[in-house]
Every structure is written in C-alpha cells, then in structure tokens.
C-alpha cells in the first residue's frame, strides 16, 4: 500500500481536488492497484465508467465529470487514435491535467498524437504484477522522450544486465535485461506453490523482470521487448516494440504485432500482423508499401519478411497483445493458456 500510495501521488500526480479516472478493468492488477488502492489511499475523488471502449461515450464521461487525471492503456489509446480528432473536437476536455499510460510500452506516435488531440502527452509508466507498483516511469514535469519508459521511481534501483554475466551493462544504448534491486515495499514475495520459478527471478542480487531495454546517455530506459518476444534473426536480436511503433506511423496501420517466424537460413525472421484503419484494404500492394516503409525507417533486418492483415490482434482482457499466441502459431506449437484472452 505504501508503494501504491506514493506512486499514485507522485507519478499519477494525484492532488486533493482531482477527479481521477482509471479505465483499467478491476480484474487486472492496474484496476486494483491504481483503480482502487492508490487513489483511495490518497483520498482522491474517483469516477468509474461501466462500459467497453466507445470514444464518444468516454469523452462525454470525461467532459461530464470534469476528469483531471486519466490513467489509460496503449490499446485504448490506439483505438482513440483510430477514431480520430473529430470526435475529440466535439467535447470539452479542458479539465484534463495529467495523462498516464500502463500495460504495454507506449508507442512514440501515441505520445505525439495525444499532445495534438488533448494538448497533453500520455506519460508511459512501467511496472508488473510482480513489482506491485510503478517502478520506471515518466514523471509529471519531466521531459518526455516519446517512446521511452522514463526513469526509475525514487527508491527504485533499476538497470539493464548483460544476459550472460548478469552484470549491469556499462555503455549507454546496449540492450540488456531490465532488473531491479530487490527490497522495495511492494515486491513480489513468491509465486503460489512454485518456489523454484520465484527463485529463478533473481540473479546476482537482482530481480529480473523478463523484459529487455537499453538505457540512453540521459538515463532514460527504452523498451525493446519481453525476453520471449524478442526476435533472433541471423544472430541479431530485434525487439518487436520498435517495429510495431514504426508500423503505427504508417498511414494505414491501426495496430500491429511483430513476432518471429521460423526461417531455414536466418533461424527467425520478422513477421508482422497488421490491423488496418478504416478505408484501407490489405492487398499485396499495401503489404509491399509497408515492408519498404519499415525497411527505410528502421533497417532491412527489422523489415517484416511477411505481413498478414488481420481484423484484430489477439489480446488479453486487459488489452495486452498476445504475441506468444501468434508466435506459437508460426512455429506450429501449442498456443498455451488462453484463459485471459479477450473474446472477439
């Protein structure tokens, strides 16, 4: 509770006269930690909307209740982007003072768009169920580098580790395993009936998040991908987040997932699943256009060797893209537990 109280206060910038809206489902850890415990511990007025995604309804809600702080998620933000600016213009959202995002890394395009749409950037926040609170984040008033996770919350020691030695990486820009020094108040104490899996989360005095990132020269963290989601192509590790963020900058793309596809020569290559914006048709010409767009924007290595156009991406009910399902399908493997998957 201490961690959630402090981070709700300092990261979400909750103040006594705020009206706070967290649109996370209460069944998700964000919905309990920052949908209940954080704001209630701070004594903040909070509003709840019992509704699925609907841009008109959401904006009306913000307008009617004069919401000042809004904590949302990248999937919802991308859906709002797809709905466009016209619907924003039909509502008075001037009450909004601070916006934050959680659940998945927030694409740079979404940060830029929110500044245009609401006059405010969404601040990306990073944490896990296991960390119990926000641990790496963009703070109110801090310079945001769109696409960056931000910096460690005060009291949290975070680094990226060399995956072979588990020692902190010494040079800026080198990708490693995101790790935290154990001991913050809300840190996980164990996995139910699985002490070995818990023990495996700790190496060389660090808690391993299972994610990869790089730290730049200014101390900002840059998410690359989950360990399981990183694509190993011809010996080079390619993170899906960078590819997906670049895809989102293409005029036709509403949402995307980049996963590994087996390849006889390169072991793995990038395959992208793309959901298109209304008015676009997923034909071979568009596939080629998008492939070349990524190749020029990022690199030939990051260029999807195949693009599959889909009506939607598989997600959990909390909105996180289930890349492991897509990857398993590519490799002909069992897709695993689908109990958290959102119904279409």
């Amino acid at each position, binding site marked *: 509770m201490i961690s959630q109280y402090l981070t709700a206060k300092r990261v979400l910038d909750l103040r006594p006269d705020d009206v706070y809206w967290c649109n996370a489902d209460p069944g998700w850890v964000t919905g309990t930690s920052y949908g209940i415990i954080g704001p209630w511990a701070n004594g903040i007025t909070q509003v709840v909307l019992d509704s699925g995604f609907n841009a008109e309804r959401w904006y009306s809600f913000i307008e009617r209740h004069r919401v000042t702080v809004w904590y949302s998620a990248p999937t919802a933000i991308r859906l709002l982007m797809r709905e466009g600016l016209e619907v924003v213009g039909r509502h008075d959202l001037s009450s909004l003072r601070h916006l934050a995002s959680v659940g998945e890394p927030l694409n740079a395009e979404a940060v830029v768009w929110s500044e245009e749409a609401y006059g405010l950037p969404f601040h990306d926040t990073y944490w896990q169920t296991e960390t119990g609170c926000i641990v790496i984040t963009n703070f109110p008033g801090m310079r945001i580098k769109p696409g960056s996770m931000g910096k460690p919350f005060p009291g949290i020691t975070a680094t990226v580790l060399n995956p072979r030695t588990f020692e902190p990486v010494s040079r800026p820009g080198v990708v490693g395993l995101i790790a935290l020094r154990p001991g913050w108040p809300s840190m996980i104490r164990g996995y139910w009936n699985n002490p070995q899996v818990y023990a495996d989360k700790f190496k060389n005095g660090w808690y391993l998040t299972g994610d990869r990132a790089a730290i730049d020269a200014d101390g900002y963290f840059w998410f690359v991908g989950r360990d399981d989601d990183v694509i190993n*192509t011809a010996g080079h590790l390619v993170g899906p987040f960078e590819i997906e963020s670049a895809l989102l900058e293409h005029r036709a793309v509403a949402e995307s997932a980049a996963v590994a596809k087996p390849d006889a*020569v390169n072991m793995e*290559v990038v395959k992208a699943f793309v959901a298109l914006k209304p008015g676009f048709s997923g034909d*071979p*010409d568009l*596939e*080629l256009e998008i*492939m*070349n767009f990524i*190749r020029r924007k990022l690199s*030939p*290595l990051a*260029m999807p*060797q*195949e693009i599959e156009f889909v009506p939607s991406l598989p997600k959990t009910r909390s909105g996180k893209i289930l890349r492991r399902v897509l990857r398993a399908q590519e490799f002909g493997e069992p897709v695993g537990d689908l109990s958290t998957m959102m119904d279409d």
Partner: protein
Amino acid sequence: MDDVKKVIREYVTKEYLEEGDERQVTDQTKLISGGIVDSFSMVSLKRFLERKYAIQIPDAEASPEAFDTVDSIAALVGKFTAARG
C-alpha cells in the same frame, strides 16, 4: 526483356540506394554481393517483381545468386512469365 531490366534498374535505384548515393546500377552491377540489396531486403524486391509481372517466384529460386544482378533477375522474371503463359 529490355523493358524488364529498365524497370528493375529503376526500382533498385529508387528503393535501395540512399539519397546522395551516386552509384549507377547497370545490368551487371552486383546488387547482393555488392551490398546494395541485402538478403533481408531481397524479399521486398521479390514481392515487387511478383506484383509487377503477376508471377510467383518459389522461395527455392529466390536465391542471392539469382538476385545478384539485373541480368539474372530479368532472366528469372522471364522464366516465370513464360511459364505463366
């Protein structure tokens, strides 16, 4: 065949040479082994040719050797356009 080569030269120049790169792409210029088109980018070139000429080039035939020059690419295109009829 000359038209095909011209299309390929122009596409390679436009898509794979950086702005300011003054190199001339001839029918014999080494594209893959010369570092102009890498093996990952080859897929986009293959897709372009398949769309342009309404052909399917099997992956087994889309080798770095077959894509190394405009001449060899044009020959590949010719083979599959002839097979298509």
